[in-house]
């Protein structure tokens, strides 16, 4: 019954066979005679993708972007990005008769007078949250596993740009309905722009077309939101995907997995099904969220009015961290001199810090490469524990991000947890500096001890929890070798290589230039790699096995071992 010899990569079940393959063939012929796609398709139809849950995080971002496009187009059919004031006469009673902008009016119309409009509006907003959130965790995955290394640096840069553009797209989007909360956000944005030294005031005038709020900001944000940024995002996503296909996906070390191959399932049918299916799942999840969970109830906020404000005025969460920094920086950082004012509390936190962090992220693969001095291509991923310093760096960044995000929700935290805003703020002022350092150090040491544990297991097997008593009365715990996949993950990784400082003078007695820079590089290299444990070599493993095989009465030698547990390993 097996058909493996004919169709190599199906399980050979009868259901898998197409009823009339000739029709598909005819259609393919027709297309190829006009488009010549067979050359391209022959490589890609059966392209191999490795399977791991963490490889699908970027897919959540991709599919939520598709949901955004679909729902966004729907919304544009009704939304009117105008700041002209009209009297509201729609269905929402408490607002009837008030003078509101066309933008707010049409947002209310979509919410209350278009069937499915509220659903699509809420789906659009939830999908935006999912888009940015999944880009963030996707980026963390790529960072923690070293997938940004050569040859994928450019794709990393594209990813950081996508995250940045996605955030801007989100901001321009939630500013459009012109409700009280979004208007408050735009008002704050005006303050942000004004804080830029020298050109800030002009920036504000140019952005708003007049003094805040002017009459132009919503039409301008609209065209940025529906054309400019989505166009850029689409282009960058296309480049991101093309590079992914060209480089082929990274994979975890494992049995049969090497730097020279990629092991997994073919694009057609398995990956097409899994990825395509995931789109429907993301779409479905977004629709459920839109149907069940209220998001941004603009009718409750009411129309924007620069004299009104609500408690809990927060930006959407992805803008929360700069907003949090903005809340905890003390006001005395604002300075005036020579007739000008430097609005540092605002400029440092919401303009400079995000710029610095984005720049750092863009440069990170190149910094990392400079520190390691590694010129090779890498397709096997690194376990986070195997790069303790880098994992520590991510822990520090995440700690910083989360603390800043907490600061952005300090008022909500204060009422929910019965704390004082002032105390939270004082605490975070210190924690924002100390927390990341602590997180780095703890994570690095933690990773190293995990490495130690893994190496131990690779050499001596894992503890089974079975205690055995030998005929002469000694107790020992039975150790068994790790499963192959686990063993490969530990021993299959590359060794770290420490850089050596070249002599200050070369062999001709000429002093080398850039010595100071080299020294810094060397110090960083040591800091990054020197504490790491290296995977056991084949010889070490061999020796460990021989040791266990050769000694039956090894408990007698317990004192001779550094590690008592070594002595307890039961040979096999």
């Amino acid at each position, binding site marked *: 019954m097996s058909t493996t010899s004919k169709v190599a990569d199906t399980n050979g079940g009868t259901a898998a066979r197409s009823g009339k393959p000739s029709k598909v063939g005819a259609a393919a012929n027709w297309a190829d005679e006009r488009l010549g796609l067979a050359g391209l398709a022959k490589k890609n139809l059966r392209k191999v993708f490795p399977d791991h849950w963490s490889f699908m995080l970027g897919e959540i971002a991709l599919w939520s972007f598709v949901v955004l496009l679909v729902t966004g187009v729907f919304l544009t059919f009704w939304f009117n990005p105008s700041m002209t004031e009209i009297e509201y006469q729609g269905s929402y009673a408490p607002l009837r008769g008030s003078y509101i902008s066309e933008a707010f009016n049409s947002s209310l119309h979509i919410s209350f007078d278009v069937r499915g409009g509220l659903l699509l509006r809420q789906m659009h907003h939830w999908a935006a949250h999912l888009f940015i959130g999944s880009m963030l965790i996707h980026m963390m995955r790529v960072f923690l596993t070293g997938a940004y290394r050569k040859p994928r640096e450019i794709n990393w840069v594209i990813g950081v740009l996508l995250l940045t553009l996605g955030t801007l797209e989100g901001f321009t989007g939630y500013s459009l309905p012109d409700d009280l909360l979004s208007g408050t956000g735009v008002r704050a944005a005006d303050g942000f722009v004004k804080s830029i030294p020298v050109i800030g005031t002009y920036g504000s005038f140019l952005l708003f077309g007049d003094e805040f709020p002017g009459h132009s900001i919503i039409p301008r944000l609209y065209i940025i939101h529906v054309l400019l940024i989505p166009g850029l995002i689409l282009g960058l996503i296309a480049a991101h995907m093309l590079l992914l296909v060209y480089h082929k996906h990274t994979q975890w070390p494992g049995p049969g997995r*090497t730097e020279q191959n990629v092991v997994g399932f073919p694009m057609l049918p398995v990956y097409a099904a899994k990825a395509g299916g995931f789109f429907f799942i993301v779409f479905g999840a977004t629709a459920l969220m839109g149907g069940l969970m209220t998001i941004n109830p603009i009718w409750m906020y009411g129309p924007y009015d620069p004299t009104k404000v609500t408690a809990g005025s927060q930006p959407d969460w992805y803008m929360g961290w700069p907003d949090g920094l903005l809340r905890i920086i003390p006001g005395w950082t604002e300075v005036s001199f020579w007739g000008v004012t430097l609005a540092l509390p605002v400029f440092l936190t919401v303009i400079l810090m995000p710029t610095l962090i984005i720049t750092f992220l863009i440069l990170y693969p190149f910094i990392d490469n400079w520190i390691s001095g590694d010129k090779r291509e890498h397709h096997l991923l690194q376990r986070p524990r195997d790069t303790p310093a880098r994992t520590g760096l991510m822990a520090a960044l995440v700690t910083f991000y989360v603390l800043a995000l907490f600061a952005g929700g300090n008022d909500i935290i204060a009422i929910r947890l019965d704390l004082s805003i002032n105390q939270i703020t004082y605490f975070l002022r210190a924690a924002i500096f100390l927390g990341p350092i602590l997180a780095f150090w703890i994570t690095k040491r933690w990773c190293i001890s995990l490495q130690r544990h893994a190496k131990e297991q690779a050499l001596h097997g894992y503890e089974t929890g079975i205690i055995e008593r030998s005929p002469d009365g000694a107790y020992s715990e039975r150790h068994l070798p790790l499963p192959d996949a686990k063993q490969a993950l530990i021993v299959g990784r590359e060794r770290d290589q420490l850089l050596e400082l070249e002599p200050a003078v070369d062999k001709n007695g000429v002093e080398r230039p850039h010595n100071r820079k080299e020294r810094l590089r060397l110090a960083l290299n040591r800091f990054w790699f020197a504490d790491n444990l290296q995977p056991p070599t084949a010889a070490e493993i061999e020796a460990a096995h021989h040791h266990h095989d050769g000694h039956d009465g090894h408990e007698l030698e317990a004192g001779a071992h550094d590690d008592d547990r070594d002595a307890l390993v039961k040979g096999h």
Partner: protein
Amino acid sequence: MSDQSNLPASGDGAGHSRVPEPLEDQDVAPGLPAHVWRPTDVDPKAEKRAERQVAALFIFSMVCAVLFVVAYFSFEIGREIDTFLGFGASNLFLGLTLGLGMLAIGVGVIQWARKLMSDVEIAELRHPAASSEEDRETTLKALTAGLDESGIGRRPLIRNTLLGALAFAGVPLVVALRDLGPRNMSASRLEKTFWMEGMYIVRDVLGTRINRADLEIGDLLNGEPEGLVPNSEGHLPAPIGPNGQELRPALDHEQLLIEKVKSAVIVLRMSPGDIVRNPDRENWDVDGIVCYSKICTHVGCPIALNEQQTHHLLCPCHQSTFDLADSGKVVFGPAGHSLPQMHLAADDEGYLYAMGDFDEPVGPSYWERG
């Protein structure tokens, strides 16, 4: 039956190979383990069951799509909205049917892939990202030849003037953006507000003037200059001064928000003894009634979150806190300077009016603020 026989046959003709034996530098890594079959691969009953399961999901999805259409047409929205358990019925059922229908397709397709499609792992060889040495050389040659023939290296005059021309070509594009802003982009525009001497304070929303006798100690009132609150017909009135003179013509409605942003005030009555006397601001209050700009000096949120007993005014956006009993000084948070105070007076009947515009710019800091 050997392990090997469970692996797929080699050479499907699309550039794939069998999983290769581990390379030498990976000699500690074990090779690919033997494939283990799923119940659906070996048990026709299990296979049938999975097939029915997937089909059932697809049928469920169809049912959901039909229900979506039913819900779309049967639940009313708008003024006559139908509700279900207190939720808007239309939104709830549209979301549920759309969501579950889509999820069913997704889960079905993935279940199909997991249970029925081949799950034998295959391997593909990687190639270095770089092109072959030969291609590189050819490309480099073509590039050099092209550049040589253009003569760009030999003619620096042309090269440099071209670069210059391209740089200048960008200038008109940038300059053309100038009129994104108004003609007058002078920062001095930010220093003036709608307020002027003799302008009455009115209640926001209601538009009525405020008598000193109206307010009790502890009262907080949100105010605007007369002329910025539309009357019952929706028109903006012209502000009238204490002597009956028209202070300025009625404002064009278009400009309302721009002026409102800068002119909103809060009026607070406290016990006169609570006020920390500032020699520069003698008599700025009327019977303990003080008036401050409502616009936070941090990034411009309106602030109205006042603690009656401490006279501390907190901004709900970033928690800048100002002491209204002490000239609006910053007592906490990220704001860089005090809240501008307004010099108040009362006419013969006791109605409150301004003794002039604020003496410093309201709202967020900017470079030219000084």
